[in-house]
């Protein structure tokens, strides 16, 4: 029963409502929300799946007149940025150092990135974060102590005349897992290293954290979950003793000049979509904005700074106007509708999801804020299956990388909506932060720390129960 008291959101589900009313005498404070729930509209933003384009559609209830902004945002998200100066004036400013030249190259078809398919493939849709482990005296507005030479991220491309910082090498450690019924699973763990370092060695305590680009759908709705809701879900001391202690990341909000709840990124290191986007422009493409006005060269990379100075440093490379359009686009990419939510197997799988405790972190439902600026996304009942909180995921997934209060073993619960469409859009799934899990089952089997108990329970399931759970997950 404690799952329901933990998630709260179940009060708003169609099935949850009845449970909610039964429990109303026991957990009155949580279920009083159901009064508000009646005034909420269901989430009408979701769209019918559309094959490989399933992650590329605007919210179904976005006003038609806003398609102009959506299209403009889409084009700046999709089309490659070029080196300045160029005839493509509004899209110049790439580099000097960068990981890629267009958002879409990592968020492939507005979906996920992947690990390279073999030696001859590139590593464009993943990146490596760098930070000095165990560093002290980190300023309030910095996520961590970046590598003194290479900065917070390895850029594996550079404009002509400048050396790329290095190249990503990957090897895999394989291991075999045995489930309770004796069947076996092969897991792979990617081990990342950097070759061809062009600016000298890394700091001796610099750690490497690989990040796969996640799918872009439903982000506006996640942004619209009220902060009060996150606070209600957070349980840093694990007072309810369910073994799950979600923490809200406290991250620097550049516009507000204060610490705010983190929501976006694998460690919830960004407070808003706008800042997430501007940060990606800067870190991944070397593009300056009003939020990130400096090139991503460190003080030790003089050639990079010199090259940047040859351009017009007074002029922002992505204007506020275009950043706003891109942010509008990313707020409105819609989550595909579920295909068979009433299928018997799927419904059975949903019950197993609850029983295993998955919903302890993958919170099924939330209500979006009434005052979210995009009215069509406001005051809606949504089902992202995340609490946006940080959880200890155990040593196997830990990477010693810090991001504000998030420690190496802590990761933000990724939303599960859209999970079942990833393979159709992207060909492969590449789940978890470094893309190691080739399907949802492997992702479950990697869960440690606060997720260890759910993982252990999963391994006890028989074959048909496992299939039911996966049928549910892939229906999301």
């Amino acid at each position: 029963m404690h799952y329901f008291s933990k998630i709260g959101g179940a009060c708003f589900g169609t099935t949850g409502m009845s449970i909610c009313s039964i429990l109303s005498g026991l957990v009155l404070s949580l279920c009083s929300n159901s009064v508000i729930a009646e005034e909420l509209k269901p989430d009408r933003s979701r769209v019918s799946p559309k094959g490989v384009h399933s992650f590329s559609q605007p919210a179904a209830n976005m006003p038609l007149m806003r398609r102009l902004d959506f299209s403009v945002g889409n084009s700046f998200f999709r089309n490659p940025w070029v080196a300045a100066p160029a005839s493509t004036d509004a899209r110049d400013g790439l580099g000097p150092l960068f990981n890629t030249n267009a958002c879409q190259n990592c968020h492939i078809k507005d979906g996920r990135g992947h690990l390279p398919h073999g030696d001859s493939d590139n590593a464009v849709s993943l990146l490596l974060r760098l930070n000095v482990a165990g560093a002290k005296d980190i300023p309030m507005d910095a996520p961590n102590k970046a590598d003194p030479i290479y900065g917070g991220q390895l850029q594996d491309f550079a404009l002509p005349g400048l050396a790329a910082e290095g190249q990503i090498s990957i090897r895999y450690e394989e291991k075999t897992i045995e489930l309770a019924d004796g069947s076996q699973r092969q897991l792979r763990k990617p081990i990342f290293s950097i070759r061809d370092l062009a600016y000298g060695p890394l700091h001796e305590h610099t750690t490497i954290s690989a990040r796969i680009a996640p799918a872009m759908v439903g982000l506006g709705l996640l942004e619209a979950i009220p902060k009060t809701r996150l606070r209600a879900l957070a349980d840093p001391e694990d007072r309810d003793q369910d073994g799950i202690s979600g923490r809200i990341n406290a991250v620097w909000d550049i516009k507000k000049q204060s610490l705010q709840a983190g929501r976006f990124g694998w460690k919830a290191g960004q407070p808003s979509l706008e800042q997430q986007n501007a940060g990606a422009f800067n870190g991944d493409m070397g593009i300056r904005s009003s939020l990130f006005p400096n090139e991503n060269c460190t003080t030790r990379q003089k050639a990079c700074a010199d090259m940047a100075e040859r351009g017009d440093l007074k002029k922002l490379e992505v204007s506020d106007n275009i950043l706003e359009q891109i942010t509008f686009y990313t707020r409105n990419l819609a989550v595909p509708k579920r295909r068979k939510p009433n299928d018997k197997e799927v419904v059975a799988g949903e019950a197993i999801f609850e029983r295993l405790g998955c919903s302890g972190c993958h919170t099924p439902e939330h209500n979006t804020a009434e005052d979210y600026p995009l009215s069509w996304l406001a005051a809606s009942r949504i089902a992202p299956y995340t609490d946006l909180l940080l959880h200890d995921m155990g040593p196997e997934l830990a990477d010693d990388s810090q991001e504000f209060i998030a420690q190496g073993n802590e990761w933000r619960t990724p939303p599960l909506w859209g999970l079942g469409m990833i393979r159709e859009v992207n060909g492969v799934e590449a789940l978890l932060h470094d893309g190691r899990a080739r399907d949802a089952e492997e992702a479950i089997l990697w869960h440690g720390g606060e997720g260890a108990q759910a993982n252990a329970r999963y391994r006890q399931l028989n074959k048909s129960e496992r299939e039911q759970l996966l049928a549910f997950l892939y229906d999301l």
Partner: protein
Amino acid sequence: MFFKSRCVVALSVCAASLFSAQTLAEKPSAESVVQHYSDLAHAIYEDSLLTAQQLQVAIDEFLSKPSAEGLLSAKAAWKAARVPYQQSEVFRFGNPVVDDWEGQLNAWPLDEGLIDYVEQGSYQAELGNVGANANIIANTSLQLGANTLDTQKLTPELLASLNELGGSEANVATGYHAIEFLLWGQDLNGTAPGAGSRPFTDFIAGDACTGGACERRREYLRASSQLLIDDLQYMVKQWDKTVADNYRAELLAMSAKRGLSRMLFGMGSLSLGELAGERLKVALEANSPEDEHDCFSDNTHYSHFYNGLGIRNVYTGEYQRSDGRRLSGPGIMALLVTKDETLANNVLSSMNKSQASLQKLVDSAERKDSPEAFDQLIAEGNTRGAKLINASIQDLVAQTQQIELAAKSLGIDNLNPDNADHDF
């Protein structure tokens, strides 16, 4: 150019004739409007097919004896084929059968390095795009990650399978723009005057071949024009009233309100998101010929104009066929006039206004003295060009507002694709 003067005249004439005809005619039913819409779609796709077949004839003639004149007439045939096709795009949004199909015919922008040789440094390909420098024409196999793809025989099927290779939308191997690139070559003039100028010798088999692999370039051009015809034949069938189980039958079996919703959603989406947004505003804001719709041929002005005309066709129910015949029947206007005559006229005026603005883009590109094509109008600092394009954008926005009002008046409150799939 050919259609220019005729269109301007046609607009005013048909505005007047429609009006009197409709006030006298008996009230059309919503069902008859959706049915006429299907007839319109069929006629427009049939014209697209006929002009594509003429293009194929011109290409075959050119390839049988490559010459500068032969290339010119193939280019002229390509431009003529765009006239009906661009008018067909209003059917794309709202009708899944078209939307799911059209990428193979009209996807853009494309990384031309996928198809053929390119001038190094002439444009920025997508990083990580495995196809960006694949040069299918020069290579009989492609290495893609761990897989090797056999491209020895350039069949329509093979080319179709290479679209969106590796998940990149810029990998466009087929359709009008691939053929356009083969006929014109890269436009290396940026925002300065001039279109692509591929030498006809790129298609000479044997020693006089320029650009290398001429045999394969010829094969590529043949295969891509054949695929275009195959695809258009499929779509003509989808709207053919003599076929029992096609999309037309499916559409007509739905409630008329659902049909109207698809029609209006298609008009609004093309008007605003696609034409005003992707094709005008994006190109203007980026100042980039890379965002120009018909960037190799510099035929963009006509593409835009006929997109706009296509929207108007659905509204008025009128369409001028490629052979000059006129198809007319009850459009949305005929239905609206019975509900709200003032609104019906306002919608038409808004469409006439946007047509006039788009006509100015045509005039600018086609005038004899120092013409300015679309890729010059979007150049940074060309304030006159920006003004012209912005006028089109504003008129299309205003027109879309009118389309929304028309929808409301017909009982459709929220135009969106998913509503278009469900009853209200």
